[in-house]
């Protein structure tokens, strides 16, 4: 088993599935000979030719719109949006077209495709290279939203997303692209979508997180353990459709919940987790659900280390719900 970074695991996942399935192709800005600005598609044009991994004109709307058409005519496109911040010109194609096609056609037409895009802060990218827009897309029935946090999951979830019969938005935590390494099996394998990953077992406080927040939460949980608080850390990894029963089981286990995400708080993903628990597990709760999130502001630049939830803020929330 090779030890890979997340971005290498993405690359390996693309290669594995492209070797197995000639209908899979990759398109996007600079994904060809350059291999993408983060090198996620490095070597694909060399190995599979320009017909299966190619650069497009600089138009996110065009990339996703044409990918929908390819998916409707027998191919499995994997479209890269260079930064998630640039996805909004394609919002209409994702929300109005890809996500609604199966439903509006009564199942006659479908758009099995994957949109890969790096998201999140931590690279000093300012407002437009740092956003976490998952909540916009999680409000879109028909779409699946997947966020890996380990190399193993990055490859397995990506392959499962490409083989999935529905459109998937695959959000890659760019802050972790090269900072996290892990063992990755060779060849194709799938990590089932809409399943949770237990990162750490514990009985005192449950923490839900995903993507780049997972290592932050793990560190905070280790610090909490030193203070005698045993945290149960859950990586949600598929945000839509969510394993709601799994979330409720994990919440009931401790009766004390913290949700952590980078995105702004108001109407953020944490609100859904909080509401789900309030509706279905309130009788198990020993403390109010606490959210640790980005501020309800645009993404800052020089102060991003304060905007992003860190171990201190997560630990503070753990202690608050534990002592409530």
């Amino acid at each position, binding site marked *: 088993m090779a030890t890979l970074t997340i971005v290498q695991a993405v690359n390996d996942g693309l290669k594995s599935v492209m070797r197995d399935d000639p209908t899979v192709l990759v398109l996007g800005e600079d994904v060809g000979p350059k291999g993408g600005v983060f090198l996620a598609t490095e070597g694909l044009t060399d190995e599979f030719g320009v017909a299966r991994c190619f650069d497009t004109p600089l138009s996110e709307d065009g990339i996703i719109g044409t990918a929908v058409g390819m998916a409707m005519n027998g191919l499995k496109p994997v479209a890269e949006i260079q930064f998630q911040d640039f996805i909004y010109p394609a919002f209409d*194609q994702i929300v109005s*077209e890809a996500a609604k096609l199966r439903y509006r056609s009564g199942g006659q037409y479908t758009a099995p495709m994957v949109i890969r895009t790096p998201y999140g802060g931590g690279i000093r990218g300012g407002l437009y290279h740092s956003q976490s827009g998952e909540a916009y897309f999680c409000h879109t029935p028909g779409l699946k939203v997947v966020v890996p946090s380990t190399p193993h999951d990055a490859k397995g979830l990506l392959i499962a997303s490409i083989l999935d019969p529905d459109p998937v938005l695959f959000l890659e935590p760019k802050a972790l692209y090269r900072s996290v390494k892990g063992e990755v099996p060779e060849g194709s394998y799938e990590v089932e979508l809409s399943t949770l990953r237990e990162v750490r077992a514990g009985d005192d406080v449950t923490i839900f997180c995903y993507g780049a927040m997972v290592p932050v939460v793990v560190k905070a949980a280790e610090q909490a353990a030193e203070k005698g608080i045993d945290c149960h850390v859950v990586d949600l990894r598929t945000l839509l459709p969510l394993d709601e029963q799994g979330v409720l089981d994990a919440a009931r286990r401790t009766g004390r919940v913290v949700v952590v995400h980078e995105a702004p708080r108001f109407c953020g993903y944490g609100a859904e987790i909080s509401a789900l628990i309030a509706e279905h597990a309130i009788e198990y709760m020993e403390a109010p659900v606490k959210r640790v999130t980005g501020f309800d502001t645009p993404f800052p630049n020089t102060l991003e280390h304060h905007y992003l939830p860190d171990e201190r803020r997560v630990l503070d929330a753990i202690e608050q719900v534990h002592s409530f």
Partner: protein
Amino acid sequence: MTDVQRVLAADGSVVGTVPDLSDERLRELLVHMLRVRCIDERMLKLQRSGRVGFVGSTLGLEGAMIGSAAALRSQDWMWSGLREGGAAVMRGLPLDEYVAQMYCNSNDTAKGRQMCNHFQHKGSHYPSWSSVIGTQLAHGVGAALAASRRGLDEVHAIYCGDGASSSNGFHSGLNFAGVWRAPCVFVLVDNGWAISVSSKAQTAADSYADKGIAYGVRGIEVDGNDVLASLAATEEAVERARAGDGPSLVVLSTYRMLGHSSSDDPTRYRDPAEVDAWAQRDPIDRYEAFLIERGVLAPGGREELAARTLAELDEVIAEQEAADPMSTRTLVEDVYADVPDHLRRQYNEFARIQEAHGEARPGEGAFPL
């Protein structure tokens, strides 16, 4: 600005080269145009009596629609907008499915999910389309690229209106098609009005066909009320695309004689004199005169054909009026390939209330969890 291609003058006299078509084929074009007009009349009548919800009228557009679509082969695709449903019927959409879609009933292949006038037909490659203007252009280009990647002999005809030429989808669609030399043809039906905005107010370009220049896409301007010119120009573009010679932009200039839809009153924004002037250039009158002059159609033949078409249509309407509405379970089906747990739970809560009110029909019960 390119010259406007025309075969028939407004009075039906021949001013260009008549395409090499058999008498039977020439007559068929009239049959299809008349069917479009008959459907339009009937649907508007049904709408006024409250039996269907919405009609995007095609009165005046029959020549552009039928002529251009007749240029396609059976394996080619047609990416449509609001007013191409009649062409879909010509290419294979069964009339009963057409009417079922207008009624959004349980025979509708879209399961009643789209508002009226949003047709689809997989068998003749007429994909589902959304009401959002211009999104289908990039789809057609992507599907055309897929066809060439898969080695399929398909041309993708991508329809849009004058209003859609201002959408971002028009720009990205034509640009990608030009760069990829995708086997597709853009058919821009300039019908004079985008709801209440004149097509002259939509662009400062001299001609919609000129827009192709910026994308390296050949532009052609055609008299859209001339079914033969529409056919000839589109056919040339389609066969060029098929031969790998790249995409074209075929602009069919015509006129939407009625409002944008059954909900629109065009007298609020346009001069009746303009409408009268276009009535003199009616595509069916013009073509009828040509066929009679050529001896392909007997005087009075048109009325006979229309009566037969209406009778056939009325039979289909009577059948579809009696069809059931969709099962309530379709509320949560086809969102994903399988109905996920959270949707099953949402539906089951609804089904419990339906049952409590005695309104659940057989097959509308809870999903297993």
